[in-house]
């Protein structure tokens, strides 16, 4: 991708919208695919809009992404990273040599090691280790890729979430979903390209997690809300019927078209399109959100209940969104910050999420969507092998934030299914083998989407920025 894109996009707005409008009617579905490599200032401007579907650098395994963000930082030691060694040292202080240079958030360095209270077992033909806290995920053990050797840079929630989502601990960079949408455009003509769903609490990182940073705002995530309209201002004002809305839009279209003819400004054509897409969104978004159309079997599979604001509903919505051409679906479930009662908390949150995660994989698979849809599961960091507890015992037996080693899993879209990658040391403090840094994960996912992560860049402030900053190595060993 060429660094002059921004100017080009601005320029093309002027040049091409009229053509776009006239030749393509009001939709963007008919747009020709434009190769990323051709999108260059020197190339003749093509009729396109910034969200038109685009081909990536090379043929891609995956076309879309569902990111199940477990915000707060789930405990890998309670779910995936089985450490019998930790039981051996339970109650003993963490070896000081491990703590050299390590930043801890809440706990003191002399906090004792704390073994898991869950039983672990091997599952599937692959023998993936999972704890009994996961009652459903074992069913798809052979469909997912577990990475036990994740590492990140930050240990506080907001910076770590921002890092996981933008590749930088500082605010202001485009989010993962924005980069993908910028690179691939949208295949939906009546829904946003990048949709954000959330359950449980609001996120620490706030709206910057799905912001477009310095990329044009058309690439930012659109949060679908849990109550009221799924999209802000989606519903007509009370008393305004769909016919009245159509009347108004017809009048607007005529008046704006009249102005377009008078002024020659192609930007007006874009505005007409925006209004028409808004109108289509008004119909398609409620239809999308209406889970009652799903079969009983499907609802039961996810544990979804129409009308509720649950993680399970969001997982089902995610499938419905990708079915409708949405490029990037970002879920947040901010509920995993178990400084206390990590045992109870892990059970409780798995009750909310485990079945739905599993159902999503099964459902995508049976619909033939898993092969070109990437599913990502994980938090902004993991949790310490050491215990955290209030001295008065009121909030005992939790774990602090830990960035040196944690677990994520991915599935579909060209990942090698049924493997567990990476290892941590005896107590799960450090990565012992095959570390995968957040930048590496980003590079690998972009690779599956058809991008050279070093070339998916955008010129800003005199520099070509990219999701992986100046880092990132594609981890070929987890690819199918």
């Amino acid at each position, binding site marked *: 991708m060429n660094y002059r894109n921004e100017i080009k996009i*601005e*320029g093309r*707005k*002027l*040049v091409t919208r009229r053509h776009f409008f006239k030749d393509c009617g009001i939709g963007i579905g008919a747009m020709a695919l434009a190769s990323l490599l051709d999108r*260059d200032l*020197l190339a*003749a401007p093509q009729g396109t809009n910034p969200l038109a579907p685009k081909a990536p650098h090379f043929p891609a395994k995956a076309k879309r992404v569902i990111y199940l963000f477990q915000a707060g930082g789930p405990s890998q030691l309670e779910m995936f990273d089985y450490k019998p060694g930790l039981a051996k040292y339970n109650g003993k202080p963490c070896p000081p040599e491990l703590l050299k*240079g390590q*930043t801890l958030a*809440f706990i003191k360095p002399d906090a004792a090691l704390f073994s898991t209270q869950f039983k672990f077992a091997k599952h599937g033909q692959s023998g993936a280790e999972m704890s009994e806290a996961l009652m459903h995920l074992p069913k798809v053990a052979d469909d997912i890729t577990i990475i036990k050797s994740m590492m990140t840079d930050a240990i*506080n*929630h*907001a*910076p770590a979430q921002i890092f996981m989502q933008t590749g930088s601990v*500082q*605010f*202001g960079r485009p989010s993962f979903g924005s980069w993908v949408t910028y690179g691939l455009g949208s295949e939906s003509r009546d829904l*946003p390209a990048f949709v954000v769903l*959330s359950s449980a*609490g*609001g*996120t*620490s990182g*706030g709206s*910057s997690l799905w912001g477009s940073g310095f990329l*044009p*705002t*058309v690439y930012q995530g*659109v949060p679908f*809300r849990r*109550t*009221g309209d799924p999209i*802000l*201002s*989606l519903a*007509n*004002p*009370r*008393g305004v019927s769909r016919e*009245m*809305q159509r*009347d*108004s839009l017809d*009048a*607007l279209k005529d008046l*704006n078209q009249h*102005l377009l003819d008078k002024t*020659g400004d192609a*930007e*007006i054509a*874009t505005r007409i399109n*925006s209004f028409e897409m*808004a109108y289509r969104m008004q119909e398609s978004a409620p239809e999308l959100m209406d889970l009652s159309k799903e079969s009983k079997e499907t609802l039961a599979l996810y544990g979804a209940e129409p009308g509720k604001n649950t993680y399970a509903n969001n997982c089902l919505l995610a499938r419905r969104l990708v079915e409708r051409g949405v490029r990037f679906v970002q879920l947040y479930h*901010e509920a995993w910050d178990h400084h206390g009662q990590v045992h109870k908390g892990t059970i409780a949150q798995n009750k909310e999420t485990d079945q739905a995660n599993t159902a999503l994989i099964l459902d995508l698979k049976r619909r033939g969507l898993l092969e070109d849809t990437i599913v990502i599961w994980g938090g902004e960091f993991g949790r310490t092998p050491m215990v955290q507890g209030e001295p008065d015992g009121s909030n005992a037996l939790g774990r*602090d*934030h830990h960035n040196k080693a944690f677990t994520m899993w991915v599935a579909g879209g060209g990942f090698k299914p049924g493997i567990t990658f990476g290892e941590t040391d005896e107590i799960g403090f450090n990565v012992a083998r095959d570390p995968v840094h957040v930048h590496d994960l980003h590079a690998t996912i972009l690779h599956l989407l058809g991008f050279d992560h070093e070339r998916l860049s955008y010129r800003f*402030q*005199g*520099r070509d920025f990219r999701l992986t900053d100046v880092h990132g190595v594609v981890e070929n060993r987890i690819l199918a």
Partner: protein
Amino acid sequence: MKSVCKRIALLCFVFALWMLCKLPGAVWLNSVSAKVDGNLAHWAFIAPVRPVLPNVKNSARVSSPVDRFILAALEKQGLTLSPEADRATLIRRLSLDLTGLPPTLKEIDNFLADTSPNAYEKLVDRLLASPHYGERWGRWWLDAARYADTNGFEKDRDRSIWPYRDWVIRSFNADKPFDQFTIEQIAGDLLPNATVEQRVATGFLRNSMLNEEGAVDPEQFRVEGLIDRVDAIGKAFLGLTINCTQCHTHKFDPIKHEEYYRFYAFLNQDEEPEMEVPTPAESKKRDSLLARVAKLEDELSAKHSDLPQRMAAWEAQAKQQAGEWTVLENAEVIATNGVKFEELLDHSFIPRGDNPPTGVYYLTAKTQLKNITGIRLELMTDHTLPRTGPGRSTQGVAWLSEFVAETAPVSQADKLQPLKVAEATADFAAPNNPISLAIDGNLKSSWSIDAGPGLRNQDRRAVFALQTPLAGFDGGTLLKFSLSQKEFGGSAAERFEAPNIGRFRISVTTAPNPKADPLPTNVRRLLAVPVANRTPEQQREVFRYYRTTVPEFADTNNAIANLMKQWPYPATTLTVTPRPVPRETHIFKRGDWKRPGEAVTPGTPSFLHPFPATAPRNRLGLAQWLAAKENPLTARVIVNRVWQTYFGQGLVSSPEDFGTRCETPSHPELLDWLAVEFREGRVSTASGSERPSSAPTLATARGTDSAAWSLKHIHKLIVMSATYRQSSHISPELLRADATNRLLARAPRLRVEAEAVRDIVLSAGGLLSLKIGGPSVFPPIPDGAMAVSFRSRTVWETSKSEDRYRRAMYTFWKRSVPYPSLSVFDAPNADMACTRRIRSNSPLQALTTLNDAAFLEAAQALAMRLWKEGGNDDAAKVRYGFRLCTGRLPDEFEQTRLLQLLQKEQGRFAGNTAAAVYVSSPDLNNLPANMDLHELASWTLVARVLLNLDETITKQ
């Protein structure tokens, strides 16, 4: 075609490689490059000199020197300017550009009727003098200043810094010279006899985000705040991407890694006070209260002639109460709730970051002292605490639930034994919260230091006398103190304003019978001064405390206490001030704050103009360096951003990057000419007689005859130009000749900025309040919009009456949840400095203007306005409404189409009263008697279409 492109691309690549080899000396070959020290230097790093005004063929079109540059470039391409726009378009364009507001119909009529030759210039002068000019261009600056009303990050607590925003507005209205504007923002506090205003200006630096998430390391985010300040100064004033050098020497610009930290060092020397900004009325009230207190005190002392003797006796006795205390040095403080502490030079500790509602501070220290009899806890004021503290509540109050002391031999640190406290004393306690509650073993009862208005923000102390002296251990005694702060109750929002202890220090004594010194810190200090040597003010301070100790003065004391209840609390704002002892600055290896390298001293990048010889090596010097006439960048960067605002793109298309990789300016000479004009403030007469008679004169808003660093002068030069005044019509020929309009053969047609979208719509509905300044407001927000915030329980209390309809720039800006209808129109997040807004066009914008409650309310108001003011027949109403929204009359097609819509909606609402009730008006109880709901509802939908027209939210 393809292969040509490839060849060009290859050439570019080779050229880039060649550039990389030559760096940092040489950069690009361009007509405006110059040779310095035998190297080709980048044009932007050489101070601009005034270019000669180019000659043009079509000199009749020249109405500002600006036009010569534009015309010269156009003529080279065989083009010329478009004809002048019609007058209705001009006044709307100019009003939106200079004030951010559409013109009123009366203003339009007046302008259309003004046939004088200088009618346009009079309009320009009127708008430049409008107080709304400061709002519109102040908001322009606030983008670069990254102004917001919350701290950002997870907690995203509210902050009060709107006095800075108002200072910016006032500065623009006064056309404060830009050099002075610069100096005050970077170092207003360091100017001789700095005024409150000048200190407020340093809020520019404080606009950085602040992470108060639990368990953050405050130093990490202090450093990040400074990095943001360097970035903001770089973008706002220098147009340089200095932050690239945080980790390594700049790849493209000649800024070294070390130079980044030398620049950073200027900013690394500050404390961050929260300063009160009293209004004149509040200052007067405070002065008058103090005068009345003084008068009562004077009356009291006049009544008692034996006061000097009585006070002398009291002083003699009070001197015994000081006690002898040893401050515990080398103490360590940790907290259970993730709060982290900074140790100050006097060994006091101050918590930074998160302020959760419960938690325990643990202080441990070692001492060689034997026979310790008591422990003193001092709560100390500090200007970085709310209202100076000593607590962390919004009023600066602190509570202490429980104090526990333990001891052990240093050699057996894990053998802690509790120390029994026999008695606790404090210099002050709120009536229902005595100090005894801090040793009652109950976490739910607390000692409070809240002494009420005007009195609560002072040092306090408590002393815990041990039941038996602590003999101590050979080899040292370990002391551990627990200060518990538990569940103060309060609302969700207040939970993060908990009255935890702010700055504190612990000392011990070996003297018998220890008690808390009842004397305030200042009085204790004054007692050391012999009475004869005290000033009258000092003597009054002593007396002010003394009188409270005398029971027979109760009447006066009570009268004064009652008076003080009226003590006003002004708004506060965030400022900076130098810390008493400089901080050493180190390079951070690869930008990692945990890997400090060699120490550096403050300094500016060597490739730019020299640091002024006479300037101090501090922030003030940095400010003077920025404002120096030799600075090659600032004047260019500012005029470029002004230009960008008018024309949609800058003369340099990357306003934040004037470095070696920036795009070639479209009109390099014009950029330099404007920059020199900005710096020096003369209208060029270089072309002699060719100066057109209608050339602008200097804006004289400042009451001086020099327009050096006058932004109004630059505005006038631009808006007087024929270039600015041309039509924005886009013909196919023009589109072919210059698709992106870099040459400006036509005026741009631009969707207005987010704030103007709202202001135009409210203004058309007759709802907009034009009140200037004050605390930020909370206009209606869609239900559930706040849910994405981590602290979603935080309430958005929708403002009442006028504040619902204030100009958009006063909307409370919450960084984690920016106001949706502004954000959707590309208002910047304020996460970091923004010098170029994106201008997007999306379906979400359409949904907002169609369906958002605030926009519907405006449509309803507009419909009512049409009904009341629009004339008798429907066509007249349509014409009136069209004009209110676009500033012009509709043509026949437009009028007919709108009437058609009206008719259709009349049909739809007929017999559908339920729908009409919802659509017609939010205030059905106060409708005019003869108003038909169905009719009003139909008009509301017509008004809604008018507000949604492309033209309504476009500057054309």
